[in-house]
């Protein structure tokens, strides 16, 4: 295919999306009227023209082989006139104007391992990152943890169990937060808990010391001469293990089997629906990595989901529920311990103090 004589193309950008739109989409572009959830994992959009478009959404591990993508292509050809899409949370969506295709789509996709679900007030797939599969920075694996958590919460994906509203889970394997977990209902975040080990012998060769010092958010790094060569030292009590120094300089690794692990955060959201977008807040500071199934992590997350499902009002996201009933309630119901780590001590810490007398009194018995 590659012809040596061909002109080298650059800056052509992605192919124009229009060529990939299903004909029914093209026809009704911008003319959709409403949608309805037909069954778990299936919705229909109805156009002003009266046209209908059924969408079957199926789970995806995101990390996919070309083998599997070809299977998707085949199924799309068979039932969806050769069209499909992926979602912003990496699920796969198969769209057809033909209602009759819905059941077959579900069946064939399930047969190759891809169950339908995740639409409406449900748990959909976990936005996540590279982990031990590809990144040097990871404090935990990504895909593995996601697999375990979604297995455990599967009944909330496929609609067997009902939820008050949407629940978005995200994972990032280090504080760079490529998963943008900071606004998730439940966030799983890989954390280091020991300071960088400095490779004094090589540091000066591969890193610029002023840049490195400047990279530390808490100014814990200062230039120092060690064994006669220029290097840096880390003021241990100022280090909060963010690994930004490591991003800037490979001679500052933090990864460590015992002190790396997972923290759990709750109550963030992105949508403007009802309440404004909000950040996730710390629920559990540290759970050691326990591969391959991370049972402590799946259990903690299930606890959060169940407590929320049992107590929230319709439409309340996790953070909205907690805003109504208060954090003391959240910690009491989940049984998670509230510790020093939960109390903010970064730049805007003072604003997180409870500066009112709005207090509920727990435990309550009438």
């Amino acid at each position: 295919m590659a012809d040596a004589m061909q002109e080298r193309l650059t800056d052509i950008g992605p192919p124009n999306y229009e060529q990939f739109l299903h004909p029914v989409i093209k026809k009704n572009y911008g003319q959709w009227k409403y949608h309805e959830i037909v069954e778990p994992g299936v919705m229909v959009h109805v156009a002003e023209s009266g046209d209908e478009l059924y969408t079957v959404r199926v789970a995806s591990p995101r990390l996919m082989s070309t083998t599997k993508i070809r299977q998707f292509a085949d199924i799309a050809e068979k039932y969806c006139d050769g069209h499909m899409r992926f979602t912003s949370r990496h699920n796969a969506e198969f769209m057809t104007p033909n209602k009759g295709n819905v059941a077959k789509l579900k069946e064939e996709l399930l047969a190759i391992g891809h169950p339908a679900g995740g639409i409406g007030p449900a748990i959909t797939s976990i936005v996540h990152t590279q982990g031990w599969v590809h990144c040097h920075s990871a404090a935990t694996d990504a895909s593995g943890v996601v697999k375990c958590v979604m297995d455990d919460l599967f009944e909330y994906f496929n609609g067997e169990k009902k939820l008050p509203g949407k629940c978005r889970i995200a994972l990032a394997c280090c504080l760079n937060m490529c998963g943008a977990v900071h606004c998730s209902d439940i966030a799983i975040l890989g954390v280091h808990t020991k300071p960088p080990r400095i490779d004094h012998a090589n540091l000066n060769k591969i890193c610029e010391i002023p840049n490195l010092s400047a990279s530390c958010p808490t100014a814990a790094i200062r230039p120092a001469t060690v064994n006669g060569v220029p290097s840096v030292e880390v003021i241990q009590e100022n280090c909060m293990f963010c690994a930004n120094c490591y991003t800037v300089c490979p001679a500052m690794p933090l990864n460590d089997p015992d002190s790396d692990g997972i923290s759990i955060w709750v109550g963030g959201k992105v949508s403007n629906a009802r309440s404004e977008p909000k950040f996730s807040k710390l629920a559990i500071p540290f759970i050691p990595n326990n591969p391959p199934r991370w049972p402590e992590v799946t259990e903690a997350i299930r606890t959060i989901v169940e407590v929320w499902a049992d107590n929230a009002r319709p439409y309340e996201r996790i953070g909205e529920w907690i805003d109504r009933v208060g954090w003391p309630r959240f910690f009491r119901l989940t049984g998670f311990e509230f510790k020093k780590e939960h109390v903010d001590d970064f730049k805007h810490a003072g604003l997180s103090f409870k500066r009112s007398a709005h207090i509920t009194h727990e435990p309550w018995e009438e």
Partner: protein
Amino acid sequence: MPKEYKTPKLDELEKGPWPSFVTEIKLAAKEKEMCNDLLGVLERSYNERIGHWKHGGIVGVMGYGGGVIGRYIDVPEEFPNISHFHTIRVNMPTGWFYTSEALRTLCDIWDRHGSGLTNMHGSTGDIIFLGTTTDELEPTFSELTQAGFDLGGSGSDVRTPSACCGPARCEWACYDTLKACYDVTMKYQDELHRPAFPYKWKFKFSGCPNDCVAAIARADISVIGTWRDAIKVDAAEVKNYADAGMDIFNDVVLNCPAKCMKFDHESKTLEIDNADCRRCMHCINAMPKALRPGDDKGATILIGAKAPIVEGALLSSVLIPFLNIDDEEEREDWFDLIEEMQDVWCEEGKNRERVGEFIQRVGMGNFLEAVGVEPIPEMVAYPRDNPYIFFETDEEEEE
């Protein structure tokens, strides 16, 4: 003859109903020794509870500074097939819409030149070609461009913009997300491929305030659809919802953040004070057949979201409350403003300082002044609550 790795730990991850990435790697491993080695090193990571990848080096395709993430293993002797295991970011079709044919073309290219493993998609939205050697980068690129694809961003450049499906498959899209995103992508091809900024710059396009691409949390420029006129109410459908047992009062009216709705239980009619409505979408979400955004549609432009490193995570904040972004002229003005902002940021921004952090450091007032935008109350959640005002002497004189 490929090495046979025992992967008892990874095998545990083939169990359970959720589709398994291990199964995917094994599928690919049938064709590719690279993936076999990947299984090996991953099993080892699972045993040792630590990754085996080294800090990336600078690799790429000719003339581009972005689009490839270099990756090397720290135990190349043991896993020689993945001693290089670079990632290629391929700019996805806007909205992640594909034909079967396009998918197969991508698979063909990647099977020829890489591991056959992908992320569909990366968390910025790119097609991620996961793992190849330095030698294969240029050939892959060449085939991609011939097939009409190009690389996405990485490093300190414009990152691959993304958009929700918008008008293609959603009744709430308040502007053409796909077109806006595509046009921006095409406009910034140079800035996307050749890092020349203090740090990365992301664009994301959501068609309405539900923000289905999480633009407000993850993009330096977040474009979120909205409308200015009244919510369209289909009174008959409201009644239908009520008759069907929906608790409109508790579930809709009481959840309105603006407290601007009234429901009459007798007549089953809904009244909205649209002057107070905050365009949060809740009532529309709850009753899609009865309520819809108005006709005077456009977008709110927000600026500055980012992950926590270095100064703490930020959500984007309002820059332009309402822009008719589908309108060529208004869009051109907006492009001019972006250029202005990028200039100021390039001039004054520190290395690895996202524009949101930059604005915080120099002060929003100063930033606006520098880019020639008047401050308006829509830009703030509340005016200052501290009396530390830097009065400017010439302004006083006017008073």
